[in-house]
């Protein structure tokens, strides 16, 4: 059996592979079957809508070019904003994947290594059960910081300048420039740029503690030195 063709083919080739697939993939699928996958439209929330409308106010011309103008009528307008925001999230995610952002920025907070102190609450399964996490963006390397609590921490114009030329805002950052998300200057983001900003502002927007700011409490030692100086 151990050296025969059928043994190798059926037991090692098919059976062991299937065993691993069942135990490592089907088991979590079954365990999480009560968490249906949400669509992009379903994950649009007030926080990300606020950021999306902020983009429309800050960059009226580029925004109009990319998404058009809202229709008349209160209900139609609301539906339009939600739909366009969902569309922006999908395009933004495509840019995020296509540019390989997720090879340097992870999207999950582990319960170890003080990560919840640096970035916010530890990641939970529910957060990943949606269309925008297909395939999931856990990430693999952190050259830059984790991004899954990034939404709302910085303003849209900060992101625009940062995507255009990271060094203007983070001196010494090894992040590459992305001028092709803009029409020549940070004031003119194109569809891809607007969509990517919406996507980044969405990350963590579903949490209670949005936006999750780092706590910059003044260190007591430093305060003491200042008082002494006075």
């Amino acid at each position, binding site marked *: 059996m*151990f*050296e025969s*063709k059928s043994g*190798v*083919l059926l037991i*090692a*080739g*098919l059976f*062991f*592979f299937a065993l*691993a697939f069942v*135990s*490592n*993939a089907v088991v*979590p*699928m079954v*365990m*999480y079957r009560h968490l249906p*996958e949400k669509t992009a439209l379903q994950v649009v929330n007030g926080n990300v809508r606020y950021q999306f409308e902020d983009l429309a106010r800050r960059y009226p011309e580029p925004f109009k070019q990319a998404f058009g103008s809202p229709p008349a009528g209160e209900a139609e307008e609301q539906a339009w904003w939600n739909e366009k925001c969902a569309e922006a999230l999908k395009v933004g*995610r495509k*840019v995020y*994947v*296509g*540019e*390989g*952002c997720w*090879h*340097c920025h992870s999207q*999950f907070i*582990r*319960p*170890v*290594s*003080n990560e919840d102190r*640096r970035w916010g609450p530890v*990641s939970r*399964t529910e*957060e*990943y*059960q*949606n*269309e925008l996490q*297909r*395939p*999931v*963006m*856990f*990430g*693999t*390397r*952190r*050259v*830059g910081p984790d991004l899954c609590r990034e939404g709302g921490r910085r303003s849209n114009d900060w992101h625009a300048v940062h995507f255009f030329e990271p060094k203007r805002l*983070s001196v*010494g*950052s090894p992040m*590459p420039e*992305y*001028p*092709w998300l803009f029409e020549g200057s940070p004031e003119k983001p194109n569809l891809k740029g607007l969509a990517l900003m919406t996507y980044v502002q969405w990350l963590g927007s579903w949490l209670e503690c949005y936006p999750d700011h780092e706590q910059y409490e003044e260190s007591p030692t430093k305060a003491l030195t200042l008082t002494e100086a006075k």
Partner: protein
Amino acid sequence: MSTEAVPQQLPEHKDLVIEQLVIWYFLAALAYLIISMLGGFLMALQLVDHNPLRGIEVLSPGRWRMIHTNAIAYGFLANAFLGALHWVVPRLTLRQVASRALSYFTFAAWQVVVLSTAVGIMLGEAQGLEWGETPTWIDPLAQLGLLLVAINFLTPIVQTRGPMYVTLWYFTAAFIWTFLTYAMGNFVPEYFVSGTSAGAVGGLFIHDLVGLFVTPLGWGLMYFFVPILLQKPIWSHGLSLVGFWGLAFFYPLTGIHHFLYTPIPMFLQHGAVISTIAVEMVVLTVIINFFGTLVGTGQAFMKNLPIRWFYTGMVYYFLTCLQCAMQTTMTFQALIHFSDWVVGHAHLVMFGVFSMWLQGIMTYLFPRLFKHEWYSKTLCEWHYWLSAIGLLVMATDLTLAGVFQGYWWASLQPWEVSTEGSFPFWMVRIYAGLAMFIGQIIFVYNICMTWQLSRRAAVPATIAA
């Protein structure tokens, strides 16, 4: 392996092996290796802030990082393996591949797959799955290619009678596994599941790609070439059995160890950790088996260059697995996950082990394919030493960098501390990578010169005929 026992009844080598195709596969592999290393070099330059090609969309380091990994997996490793398989399988089974036309077709189809993957990634069409970045519209073609490869090689293997030699256990399983793995990794998380479960499938995919495509083909080739070069059988058949069946059982179970401390259920994570440690035990038996084979003919390591490539690869394999047994534990993961340790580990496996073996196989086969000695044995030595030392420096450097990064992050220092602190490590990595790169350029140059010499040597013979 009794090829010399009854020579009059056996088919001849020229009827079995399509040498032309083996050469083509190897050259394609080396071309992708160079492209991949250029991509890695670009990303390395970006990290130390010396990227000369800033702001060019199709040359964005983020995109070229994906080309770097994909060109190695699908361009270099797959092509080099296919080349070697076209030499090994017909010689071992004493039968031709199912169809020569199919061999040529898969060669062409595979290059289309790899090139369109590269172009797709350059245009920003990548799929969000590590090592599965092949744009979704190429996936069906790649899947078809893998099916054809499996049919082409499994036909002669199935026609053999009696128990199979170790190499063929590994190959048979690998053809099935590669097909299934590619299907699972590229279609399941894209179309069927999302979120945490998709993460579990992704982990399974990246690990199976190493464990069920690269590893079995690599070990299968070692079980073929090492006894031939040392002219003696493998030390222990029992250990060969333990190695194969242990790998087949435990390796696929380890996928989730790539995503420890994620929301994937904890008991599955612990299961993956335990099977990973079991894999290291299995690997140890294989290594013992090969070093047992070397005992008594140790000087081959010094004198025989392909053997030196193979056994250096095995030493690195042992180091990789030792590293792996530690890093897979929850304690280590807390510190080193997401850091350069992982990058160092990946290079140690992919370059230090499998590329080393394939370089050794090419060093052995090119003179036989060209029917001419190497143009320069010294250049072959340079190729070896630059690759071996360069890789050792890179892996050590990145592993160390990972430990530092882990502590910087855990101690809640500002993020810049970790990038600025990594700078010296990233500088060393560039020079180590350059050494490896120059080694490959030397190899390609040596191949060109050998080919020219072989043509010059062949000319009078043609005229005489």
